Each structure stands twice: as C-alpha cells, then as structure tokens.
C-alpha cells in the first residue's frame, strides 16, 4: 500500500510540475494497477483509483465489466414445487458495475446527464432480447440488479471518493472472488453545476493467470483433449491411491 501511495504522490508531483492537462476543465486519473490477476489463491482484489481535477467540482466514477447476455428467471410454484417459470433475456448487461462519487450522486448530477452517461443501476438501459412487455422488462430488470448486488457484482451503494485538499482525489474499488474476467472500463467524470464537464476513460483487465489460466484456456480451446486428459488423470490418481494398500 505504501508503495502504491508513494507512486500516486510521485504522479501528483509530476502533474503539479507540468501544470496538468491543457484543458481548463480537465480531470486526470489512473489506477494503482491495470491488471487484476486471478490466481489459485484468489479471494478478491481491490484497486486504488486516484487523480487530480483542474478547478473545483465533484467526481463520479463508473466501473463497468464486459457486457454479457443474461437470462433472468422468475420462479413459480408448479404442482407444489418451485420451478423456473418465466424468463426475460437481456442482451447488454455489464457483468460488473460499481459507482463511486465524492458526494451523494443525486445531489451532484441532474437526472438527464446521469442517464446519458449511464450513472447508477437505474440508468443501465438494459435491452431485452426476448419478447417482453415494458412492464415485464422493468420488473425483470430490477430483479437482475438486485440479484447482481446480492452476488457482489453490482456495488450496492455508491462508493466514497475522498478529496485530499481541493484537487486530489482517491478511492478504493473492491472486486469479489467471483469477479468475471474480461476488459473493464473505468470512467471518471468531473461534475460541476449538476452536469458533466469533463471525463476520462481507463481500461482495467481482469484475467486468469498461471495454472488456472492454462487450465481454463485449454478446456475451452482443446475441449476434446482436455476431456481425455481429465479422464486419464483420474485413472492414474485412482490407481496410485490403491498401491499402498496392495499388501493388505
């Protein structure tokens, strides 16, 4: 952590020397790391987002995971048992979604720009890929958000962005152990007078590395060979385990 913060300070110092970006209403931000590596012992990770603003204003950050197609099932009771009864398919659901803000979001930005920049889980603009009435789409969409929050994949409340003085800000974004892999987009908005005046986008990659990456990569690309190896491994393990008992 100390190394990270020292790094951040260095960067701030550099910014201060050069006077930052040329624009008057600018915002600069970066992440402590652009790669979250999922290894065998992975139990979640956190990334520090830090930056500086040019002039006064508030900061809102949106972290968005790669979009996936998701099916939302509603359970119903059929003949005494609970079954997946109705479904709505959404085509563009971010697999991870978190908002961070320096003050409560609805206090610093008007509903219009919030919707435009898709800030907040109410502004995801989910598109249905299966026939559904607007009412159904709304109900199933709301359930999707609730369930994703329960899984920790949508941040429940906006995270807090802390200002150090007037210009420097930082926040910590947490990712759970079940974080989906792919390329994430981190958007940083400078907000003034309830509207977005400037923004910056930074990528963040979540990827399996080492043995786990090799296994899952192999399982996807060479699924037949993977299946055969899985069987052979099990056979060898079973045979080996019976050896110590031979004499009994």
């Amino acid at each position: 952590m100390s190394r990270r913060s020292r790094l951040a300070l260095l960067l701030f110092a550099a910014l201060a020397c050069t006077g930052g970006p040329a624009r008057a209403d600018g915002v600069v931000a970066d992440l402590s790391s652009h790669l979250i590596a999922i290894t065998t012992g992975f139990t979640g990770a956190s990334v520090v987002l830090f930056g500086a603003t040019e002039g006064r204003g508030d900061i809102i950050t949106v972290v968005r995971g790669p979009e996936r197609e998701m099916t939302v099932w509603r359970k119903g009771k059929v003949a005494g048992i609970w079954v997946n009864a109705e479904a709505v398919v959404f085509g563009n659901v971010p697999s991870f979604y978190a908002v961070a803000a320096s003050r409560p979001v609805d206090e610093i930005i008007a509903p219009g720009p919030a919707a435009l920049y898709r800030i907040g889980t109410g502004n995801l603009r989910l598109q249905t890929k299966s026939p559904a009435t607007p009412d159904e789409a709304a109900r199933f969409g709301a359930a999707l958000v609730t369930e994703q929050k329960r899984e920790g994949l949508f941040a429940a409340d906006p995270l807090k962005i802390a200002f150090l003085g007037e210009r420097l800000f930082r926040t910590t974004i947490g990712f759970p152990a079940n974080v989906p892999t792919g390329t994430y987009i981190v958007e940083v908005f400078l907000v003034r007078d309830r509207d977005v005046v400037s923004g910056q986008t930074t990528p963040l990659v979540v990827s399996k590395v080492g043995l786990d990456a090799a296994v899952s990569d192999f399982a996807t690309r060479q699924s037949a060979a993977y299946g055969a190896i899985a069987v052979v491994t099990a056979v060898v393990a079973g045979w080996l385990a019976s050896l110590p008992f031979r004499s009994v």
Partner: protein
Amino acid sequence: MDIYLPIAEVSLDVFVLLGLGAAVGFLSGVFGVGGGFLLTPLLIFIGVPAPVAVASSANQLVGASLSGVIAHWRRGNVDFKMGFVLLVGGLAGSVFGVWLFTWLKRLGQIELTISVCYVVLLGTLGFLMGFESVRALLRQRRPGGARRKLHQHNWMHGLPLKTRFRRSKLYISALLPIGLGVAVGILSAILGVGGGFVLVPAMIYMLGMPTQVVPGTSLLQIIFVAANVTFLQAYTNRTVDAVLTLVLLLGGVLGAQFGTRFGMRLRGEQLRFLLALMVLAVAAKLAHDLTIRPPSLWVISTEQT
C-alpha cells in the same frame, strides 16, 4: 485455505473439499456405490454451479471407482463378463444423456431436472431397499421359517439372448443388463452419478446377483460410464473442473480404500439397510428444498460468450 477453481470460477476452502472427497470415498468403498449421488448435491450446496458439480463429480468417480474396483478385484469379487455387458448399455445411455443435459441446460430447467430426478429415484429406491432389508433381518431372527426359492421365474426369464454369468452364478438374458446399463448411463450424464445407487439394488433384486460380487462389478462399469460422461461433458458443455476433481480425488481414493475394508465386516442385510437410510435422508433433504419457498424468486444465468 481457499483455492480458486478455474472452470467453476469460485474460490472454496481446500480442506472442505478434501473432507468431502474422503467422506464420499469412504461410503463408496462400503456400499459399492460411487457416492456421486451425495457428492453432487453437496458440491452444489457449498457453492459450485450445478452443471460444473455434475461434470466434475463424474470425473472424480472415474478415479474413486477404479481405486474401489482394484480393492474388490484382489478379493475376486468382480464379475468381468457382467460388467462388460452392462457397459455396452451404459456407453449408449451416457451419449444420449449428455445430449439431453445440453438440451435441458438451454431450456433453463437443468437444475430442476437434477433435483426432481434425485428425489424420485432416491425416494423409491430407499423405500424398496429399506423394506426388503428389514424383512431379511427379521427373518434371520426366527430360524426354521420357510426358505425362499432361489429366485422367482417371471417374464424377464423369457427374453432371448440367454447368457451364462459364471461368477454371478446366473443364466439370464443379456438384454436385462444391457437395458439396465442404458438407464444408468442416462442417469450418469444428467446427475453426475455413476448410477451405483440404482445399479446395486437392481443387480441384487432384478438380476438376482450374489451381494458380494455386486459392489465390485457395479464399480467396474461405473469407471467406464463416468469416463465417457467426463469426456462428453468436457467436450460439449465445458463444465469439467480438473482442479476441483483432483482435490476431491485426493480425499476420495483414500476414503474408498478404508471403506472397502469396513464394508467387508458388515453383513449384506445390514449393508443394504444402512444404504437405504442414507439414500432416504438425501431424498428427504432434496424434496424439502424443492417445496419450500426459495430465499429469492429470481435466478440469473449468464450466457457464455
């Protein structure tokens, strides 16, 4: 200590997994059932997605069963001819089963199918076995009672393709074990079980095999059916988690060896009664879960892209 499972995409405690493997392996050694019918629901319970639990259990069964067969084989308790005939049916059944699994997964009903199949199968078998073994235990208490015929003759004995199974002391139609194999193969693919808990009672009551050779022979055919299922699941659905399998195996194969020794000390009726109790307990738990209102009425499934 947590371990990240690359296909299941969850982190789980490695000692919980080892313990689970050992417990299930022990039971499989005692009863000659693969133990998959316990392992799969338990894996789902601790957070492994159902399709991955099913496929990885099948993979784990390959190793655990092999270890069990070797232990039984040293005691001469394996009927290889019967095992081979069962296998012919089993392979055909598992191909069809994996296809059915893929289809149900697309419909979003795979989890329900898994649970309902378990409840129906385990419930029926548990009751049948429980009643029979209690009757057998009671009959022993009062000797001198009329001895039953070796087996009753019925329609099954009129089928063609009569074959002699020397080790099992049987002369029956080969169609019976083949049909049994098909049924078990389908179950194996859909439920991630070797089908031992169906196979064992069916071999005893339907085919009339001697109880001693049943566990070894049942495990023999489970090896091959489970291997086939593992391969097909890995190829079609990409749901076999090799890391999960290895950890489970590590505990499982050792458990199986101890279980086999323990099982030798029990009498056939006692063995069947205990198995019946266990089967009923799992069925009751699953049935209960199906009927209570789930904590959340919503289920999200993500399409793999």
